[in-house]
């Protein structure tokens, strides 16, 4: 830093402590959390693919895991994380490109839609994959 004192009192970066929590802030934080979670989720999906390529004995092991209640819960929340990061990522692209839905009300509505889309969409994909 330079030795000169600050000439003005411009706002610093947003601090969590002084910001009133709101939907767009939550969506932003969730975007990063789901991003990191999906990083490790990709390793899990890759493990499934490797087991498939390895042979029936290995695949049987991973299938036991996947069909247990724990495996189903992990797979469902993986789908929720993918869909949230997907739809919220599209919103980021709309912000960066055409610059739409920047206003607080639109951004907030978009955020709530993204959460709803993620949970319902994952359930819909689940049902569609089972029945189609």
């Amino acid at each position, binding site marked *: 830093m330079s030795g000169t004192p600050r000439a003005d009192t411009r706002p610093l970066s947003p601090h969590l402590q002084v910001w009133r929590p709101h939907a767009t802030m939550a969506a932003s934080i969730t975007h990063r959390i789901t991003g990191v979670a999906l990083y490790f989720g990709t390793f899990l999906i890759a493990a*499934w693919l*490797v087991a498939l390529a390895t042979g029936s004995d290995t695949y049987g092991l991973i299938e036991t895991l996947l069909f247990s209640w724990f495996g189903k819960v992990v797979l469902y929340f993986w789908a929720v994380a993918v869909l949230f990061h997907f739809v919220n990522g599209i919103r980021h692209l709309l912000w960066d490109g055409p610059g739409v839905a920047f206003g607080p009300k639109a951004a907030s509505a978009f955020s709530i839609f993204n959460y709803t889309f993620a949970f319902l969409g994952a359930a819909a994909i689940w049902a569609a994959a089972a029945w189609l």
Partner: protein
Amino acid sequence: MSNNQFLTPTKAARGLGSAKSGTVHHIRQRVSALALIFLVPWFVFSVIRAIQGGEATAADWVSQPVPAILLILTAGAAIYHMRLGMQVVIEDYIAKSGTRAALLILNSFACIALFAIVALSVLKLWIGAAA
């Protein structure tokens, strides 16, 4: 620096220079995101269906040319995208330079290795089915 007392804050910041790679990182993150908009819906649906269908269904899925190609493309775009994303997370939260460098290198190695493993698995299933 010895002449700091004569520099305005802006001038001092400019003197430090930029990392000169922020823009290209930003663009790459978004271009890989654009590719994933097309690949991810197909992938999530197909992979859940393959898991629910059991081993024979799953192996049959990967042994067809279009799913095999799309799988490799999805893996490429997704792993590239997540490598860029994790890089930013590490840069944001890890201040200690040695740890940060080690994690950044680990991130690159892990992602590239993961892609190689996924690509080989897809090829094995595809070639294995054709033989």
